[in-house]
Structures are given as structure tokens and as C-alpha cells.
């Protein structure tokens, strides 16, 4: 139970986020966004803006520095006359003050030749295609056995289509950068991101520099949830502006501009077919996903991937189809793939439970997979059943009357629901340095990012363990690209990857230490590339189970979640205090997904209309009532030296399904389209 190492800085306002470094002579950037969803920029008239006192420069396609093309077309900022989506950055004003920059940006006149835009995702869109790979590097399609025949021959069949809307990550700290070029040509970026090493290498590529000529500092990051996992256009724009003006340039993407420029979860349309015997044992699993991507960057949400490993079934097909629309680029949002995919799969499992009369907990236990159904590999550990049993006991599941729509208290209907969770337990290669100081303390360095996960603290705990010393003797240095290279805080692989390198560096240091530490200290470096690559083959995944209670108001259709419990199996939990917050935080976002969150695409304008926190609702304090997360003991020797699985994402996976299943239990109505809003509920009551 370790307090966050930077907790004191965070409760006193001393912790510095990217925008907050005190620099001399800064200039401020305000961006101009495209007002058409597709077309050609004919002219940019910057005269009025340039005439305003305090305006230093106006950047647009005509005068912006040329950049090297990179894989992510979003980073080709101001490089083309083409408008790929409404809201794309088409110009920027740099000025002496934020007020002047913002006002001048409104005076930049951009003339377009608009073209008809295609912005709505449909399951029958003629542009749907199979991507070569889906996010995570998985194949788009898999098939085993004869799923169609098996489904047709099954005694009990579920065939249903589920949809999830576009959802926006909305970290509380916007995407911010302070960019400056030093006299020797080094680009320095104080930047809010999930991995300084990744920003360093990508920005070096974009600006034609050696990686060593780019320095990225990200000491404290105000959340990311995937949206800061890859550099977004804002950091490129800030760096360009700093080069053109010769001044340090500050740019915080305004909340409304984040909708188009910093990523979001694609909407999905998912058809799930489950074929089972009367006892609920699955014989066929078919999960087919339709999602969108943009014209400038291919992103294929891997929503059917969890259906490949979740349950035993002899016949299975998974399929992903995406379509390039004239929309902002979707990207990572907390557990991409698993989050929308498990909403569909776990809702379908609940429908199967209702059809077969098998208890939903028992149904999942019955279909538990002894080894990975796709690869045939053994699981390094799989404790889904333990999570379900533990959760059922704690939640009081056994007393549940399965009949839907029969628990009424006044004008409220009550119900409970369950859903399973899973997330891959990955480890990626990286480096770390451990150093013994002459005063008996240790310094451990790794270019990790703490985006609120508690990474700094977890790594210090890991290092203290490996060094057999007290936590108080370990100083962690993270959040700087000059530190040993590290993977991004993403894919729930951060702690596992960084921790492995930290343990190896600490072990190497201990070997070198004998007796007195010289004044210059003793240092050891580790690289885990070989270790990670040569690991034995296992299917490595964390598992969990969500239990939710809902109260549905008969008059307003409003759904409340008075009680929610998550039980997880994620190997060794390194810091229980922060881990619980991570799980509960994911579940909280899951409540938002279930009941509130939806970015609405307006076909006429070709853009999301509810682009702020007044119209896009995330859970508030009053929305979250009794909520808790616990874990079952799990010793897994096949993961990493800590025996830990990543926990940043699994908390949201399955959470929305548990709530939707509880709403069915409460009302008897099945909600297959998220979010479950009062309007949708009222229509069914």
C-alpha cells in the first residue's frame, strides 16, 4: 500500500505538466480548423490576422516548413491542399499572447472548394474492405471448423447486432506542447504524451533529424487513455511554429479542437452469432465487426479479437471490415478492440444465458477455455472462473432471481448483471539504468511515462525489491527521452515492460557492487530485447468479472448504478493502492460508456456536433456510487520477473456489458446500442 511518490506535488500544485514550464520569451499558438469535411483549400488570406498587433506569424500550407512523410498521415500537418476531415488543422496563428492568438485565428480566411463528404458508418457501405492487419498486428479474419454449419445446427442460437458510438478519450489535461529550437538545432519539446521515446523518434523522422537532436520532456501527464499514445498533429504544429518564429511556442489544443485532432474510439457495428447446446455449451462463435477509419490514417479497431480466445468452441469465425470515411482519424482509446468487442460478446453471452436458462455466471464457467482456442497454446494463467466465483460470492449473486422485470421499488426497477473481462498481458523490449550513489541511495532511470497510472511509484517498488533496499532509498527518473528508451504507456504493457528492464538493471548493478561505492557512483544498464524475444510461447492474458446493479427510473428512463464490483486476475499486484484506483477508474469510464458517452456525427456538416464537456457527458462524482475492485491471488511464472500483468485497461473491458445486462434484468428490454440513454430506455418501458 504505497502512496504515490509525486502525490505531494500533485496536491500542492507543484507538479509541472507540459504547458507549465517557465520559459522566457514564449509565444502562443492558436490553430485554425477546416470548416468543410472534404475538399481543396483554394486560398488562405492571412492579411487581416497579420495586421493585428502582437501577431508574429500565420502558418498555412503556403508557407509551412516541408516535412518528411511518415506512416501516420495525420502528422503531415499543413503539407497538402486536401482537406481530409472537418476540423483538420489548416492554418495557425502565433502571437505574443494567448488572447491575441485566439482572436487572430478567427480572422484567418480560408477559401475551400468543398466536395461531397461521406461521414456515416453503415454495415452495408460499399467501401468496406478487409485491412491487412488490425490494431495490435492481428490478422483481420480468422476461421476454424465450419462456423456456419455449426451455427445452423445448434439447438440454441443468438444472432444479434450491437453498436457502439464514437467515444472521445477526453483526458483532463488537453494535448499540450511547448516547443523550442536550441541554437545547435536541437528540438526540445515539453509535451503531454504517453511515451517520450516514441515522440522523440517520430518527431525526428518528421523534421529530418537524428533522434538525439530531439528531446522530449513529459514529467507529469494529465491522463491520456490512448489518445496521447502516438504523437498527434498538435506537437508537429508547435514545433513548426517554433522553428518559423524562433521563439518557444506554447500550444494547448482547446477542448473543442480535441474532438477532431487527437483521436477517438471508432463507432462499431458488430454482429455476433452464438450457437450452443441446450446446456449452453458453445459450438459456434461468429463475431463480425464493421468500423471506420479516415482518409489519412488507417486504424482498424480489433473488436473481434477477444472472441478468438475468450471461450471454447469448435467452430469460430472472426472478421473485421473497415471503411475510409471523410472523418477524423480514430485511434486508441482505453482497451481498443476489447472494449467495444467485449460489450458485444458479453451481451450476446447474456442473451444466451436467458435463452438456455443457464445462470450467466455458470454459463461462462461452462465455456471456459482450457487452452487458447486460436493458437492451442496453454494460458500462462487463466483465472476467469476464480474471478466469477469470487465476485458472485461477494456480490451476493446466488440469491438472484433470474426473471427479468420483476423487482420494483416504487417507481424504480432493479436488476443485476455480470460480464467477463480480458486483456492481453504483453511485455515489450526496453532499457533501464540503475545507479548506486555514494550516499547509499539508488537512482533508476527509464523513459517511462506516468499518465496517472502510478507508474513512477510501481517502478520504484519494483526497483527497491530488486535492489533489496527500502523504497525511500530509490529515486525514480522517468518522463524524459534522454533516459533509457522505453515503450509507450499503452496496451497495458508499460509496467511489465519497463519493470522487466528495471529489474534486470538492478540485478546487474547488484553484481557489480562490492564494498565501497566510489564517488562517481556505480551504474549498470540493461536491455531486455533478447529476453523478451526468447520467451517461451504462452497465451498471456489478464481476466476479470464485473458485477453491476442498476436502478431504472420508470418515469424518466434514467439508469443509475448503485453498486458495481470488479474482480480481476492480473498476476502479482505491485502497488495495491494505485492498482485499485486503476481498476475503479476503468470501471468508471465503463459506466460512462454504458450510459452517457457518445459523439454524434452530423451528416450535414460532417463533424461531431457535441464537441465539449457540456454536451459529451463523462461520469461525474454523483454518477459513481458504491464501486469497488478486488483481485484474486495469481502466481504466474511465465510473465516477467515481477509476475505482473498490466492493469490499465481491463477495468473498462466488459463493464458496459455488465450494466446493459443488468438493465435487461431490471426491465426485460435488451439494449444493444450504446449508450443506454433515458430516451432509449423510455421507448422500451
Amino acid at each position, binding site marked *: 500500500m504505497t*502512496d504515490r511518490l509525486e502525490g505531494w506535488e500533485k496536491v500542492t500544485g507543484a507538479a509541472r505538466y507540459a504547458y507549465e514550464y517557465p520559459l522566457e520569451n514564449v509565444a502562443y499558438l492558436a490553430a485554425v480548423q477546416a470548416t468543410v469535411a472534404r475538399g481543396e483549400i483554394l486560398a488562405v488570406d492571412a492579411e487581416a490576422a497579420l495586421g493585428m498587433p502582437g501577431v508574429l506569424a500565420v502558418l498555412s500550407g503556403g508557407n509551412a516548413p516541408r516535412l518528411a512523410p511518415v506512416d501516420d498521415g495525420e502528422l503531415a500537418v499543413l503539407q497538402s491542399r486536401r482537406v481530409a476531415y472537418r476540423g483538420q488543422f489548416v492554418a495557425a496563428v502565433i502571437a505574443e499572447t494567448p488572447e491575441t492568438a485566439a482572436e487572430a485565428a478567427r480572422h484567418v480566411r480560408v477559401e475551400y472548394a468543398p466536395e461531397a463528404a461521406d461521414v456515416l458508418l453503415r454495415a452495408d457501405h460499399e467501401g468496406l474492405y478487409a485491412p491487412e492487419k488490425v490494431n495490435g498486428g492481428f490478422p483481420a479474419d480468422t476461421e476454424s471448423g465450419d462456423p456456419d454449419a455449426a451455427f445452423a445446427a445448434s439447438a440454441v442460437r443468438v444472432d444479434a447486432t450491437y453498436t457502439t458510438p464514437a467515444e472521445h478519450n477526453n483526458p483532463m489535461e488537453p494535448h499540450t506542447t511547448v516547443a523550442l529550437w536550441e541554437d545547435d538545432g536541437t528540438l526540445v519539446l515539453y509535451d503531454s504524451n504517453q511515451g517520450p521515446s516514441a515522440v522523440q523518434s517520430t518527431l525526428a523522422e518528421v523534421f529530418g533529424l537524428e533522434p538525439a537532436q530531439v528531446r522530449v520532456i513529459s514529467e507529469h501527464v*494529465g491522463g491520456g487513455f490512448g489518445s496521447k499514445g502516438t504523437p498527434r498533429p498538435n506537437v508537429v504544429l508547435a514545433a513548426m511554429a517554433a522553428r518559423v518564429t524562433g521563439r518557444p511556442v506554447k500550444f494547448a489544443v482547446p477542448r473543442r479542437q480535441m474532438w477532431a485532432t487527437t483521436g477517438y474510439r471508432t463507432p462499431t457495428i458488430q454482429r455476433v452469432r452464438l450457437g450452443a447446446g441446450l446446456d449452453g455449451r458453445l459450438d459456434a462463435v461468429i463475431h463480425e465487426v464493421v468500423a471506420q477509419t479516415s482518409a489519412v490514417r488507417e486504424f482498424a479497431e480489433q473488436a473481434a479479437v477477444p472472441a478468438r480466445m475468450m471461450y471454447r468452441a469448435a467452430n469460430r469465425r472472426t472478421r473485421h471490415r473497415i471503411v475510409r470515411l471523410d472523418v477524423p482519424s480514430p485511434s486508441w482509446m482505453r482497451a481498443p478492440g476489447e472494449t467495444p468487442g467485449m460489450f458485444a460478446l458479453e451481451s450476446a453471452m447474456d442473451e444466451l444465458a436467458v435463452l438456455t436458462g443457464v445462470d450467466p455466471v455458470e454459463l461462462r464457467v461452462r465455456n471456459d477455455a482450457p487452452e487458447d482456442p486460436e493458437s492451442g497454446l496453454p494460458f500462462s494463467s487463466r483465472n476467469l472462473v476464480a474471478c466469477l466465483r469470487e465476485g458472485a460470492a461477494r456480490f451476493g449473486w446466488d440469491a438472484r432471481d433470474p426473471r427479468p422485470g420483476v423487482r420494483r421499488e416504487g417507481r424504480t426497477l432493479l436488476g443485476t448483471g455480470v460480464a467477463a473481462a480480458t486483456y492481453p498481458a504483453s511485455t515489450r523490449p526496453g532499457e533501464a539504468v540503475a545507479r548506486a550513489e555514494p550516499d547509499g541511495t539508488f537512482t533508476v532511470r527509464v523513459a517511462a511515462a506516468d499518465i496517472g497510472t502510478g507508474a513512477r511509484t510501481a517502478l520504484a517498488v519494483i526497483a527497491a525489491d530488486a535492489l533489496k533496499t527500502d523504497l525511500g532509498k530509490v529515486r525514480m527518473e522517468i518522463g524524459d527521452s534522454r533516459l533509457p528508451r522505453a515503450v509507450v504507456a499503452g496496451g497495458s504493457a508499460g509496467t511489465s515492460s519497463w519493470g522487466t528492464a528495471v529489474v534486470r538493471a538492478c540485478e546487474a548493478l547488484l553484481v557489480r557492487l562490492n564494498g565501497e561505492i566510489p564517488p562517481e557512483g556505480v551504474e549498470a544498464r540493461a536491455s531486455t530485447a533478447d529476453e523478451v524475444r526468447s520467451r517461451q510461447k504462452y497465451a498471456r492474458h489478464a481476466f476479470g468479472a464485473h458485477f453491476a446493479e442498476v436502478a431504472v427510473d420508470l418515469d424518466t428512463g434514467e439508469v443509475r448504478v448503485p453498486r458495481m464490483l470488479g474482480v480481476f486476475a492480473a498476476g502479482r499486484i505491485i502497488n495495491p493502492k494505485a492498482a485499485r484506483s486503476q481498476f475503479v477508474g476503468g470501471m468508471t469510464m465503463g459506466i460512462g460508456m454504458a450510459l452517457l458517452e457518445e459523439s454524434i456525427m452530423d451528416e450535414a456538416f460532417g463533424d461531431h456536433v457535441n464537441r465539449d*464537456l457540456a454536451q459529451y457527458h463523462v461520469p461525474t462524482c454523483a454518477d459513481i456510487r458504491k464501486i469497488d475492485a478486488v483481485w484474486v491471488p495469481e502466481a504466474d511464472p511465465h510473465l516477467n520477473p515481477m509476475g505482473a500483468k498490466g492493469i490499465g485497461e481491463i477495468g473498462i473491458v466488459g463493464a458496459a456489458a455488465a450494466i446493459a445486462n443488468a438493465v435487461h434484468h431490471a426491465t426485460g428490454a435488451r439494449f444493444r446500442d450504446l449508450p443506454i440513454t433515458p430516451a432509449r430506455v423510455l421507448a422500451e418501458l
Partner: protein
Amino acid sequence: MNSVPADGPDPVRAEITLTVNGSEHRLGIDTRASLLDTLREDLGLTGAKKGCDHGQCGACTVLLDGRRVNACLALAVAHDGADVVTVEGLARDGRPTRLQEAFLAHDALQCGYCTPGQLCSATAVLDELGRGLPSAATPDPAAEPVPDDAEIRERMSGNLCRCGAYAGIVAAVREAARA
């Protein structure tokens, strides 16, 4: 949207005095500047955060003449002579307040970006409860409000936390309210 006529005059500036965390500052400001930008950019007090700049998230909450406000919605020029307390001014002489201690004890923060606003807001909540002010969750507005979870959740709902630290925040405020 792109056709606002530009006019040339220099931005209008004004001189104001603000007392921030006990120190008086004489400031020349752009009359368009929000209190939040004045604190962050002119005074270097970056504790108050900018999450939305539109009064929708609470990250910028400070105490203005003793009341909690969204500093992004306050024009600095309109508050000449005001007394402002930011998160930097809560702890005195390096000694944490009960709330700050309770936030750490209950892990009521993750990324920490909403935290300064939560703390300033919670400071005002304790004051409002102490003065017997009711909220929408107070069962009997005429009676003394009780700092139970429903009351705290209602009063803290102007401060969004995307990390989802609400459970810890409520526990921390409850503890500080009862101490």
C-alpha cells in the same frame, strides 16, 4: 466564422491589483485575459489547471473572495482588488491541510490534473457545509446538512475527473468533513 472584420487597435490593457495566496500583485493585463490565464501565464501559478476553458470541467477552480469559482470564466479585469486562493495557497508553511492529507491517504488522484480544482472545490464544500448551506441533495433544506456521501457527491459534481478517482475523492472529503 471566418469573416469577422479585423480592426487594428492595440489590445486594451488595464492595471489591476490581486491578492493571491496572501501576496499582493499589481498587474498590467489584457482586458480579454481570464483570471485563469492571468494566474498561470502572468503570475506563474500553474496549480489551477485548464481543462476546457469553458466552465465545464472545474479543473480551474480557485477561491475568489472566499467562494469557489471557475477561474476560466472570470475576466481578470472584473476582479480588481479581489482576494484569490489557489491550490498553492492551501498548505501553510509546508503543512498539508486535512483535505490534502486525506486525498493522499485515499488515493483521491491519479494523473493529478483535476486535483487542484477538486481540492479548492472541496475546501469550499467544507465551508459551505459548515455554514449550513443546502444543496440539491439535502433532504430538508431548512435543516443542517450532513456530510454524507450523497451530499458530498452532489457538491463535488462540478469537478470532472476522467481518471475516475471519485470514490477516493468522496472518501477523502468525508474524512476531512468529519475530522
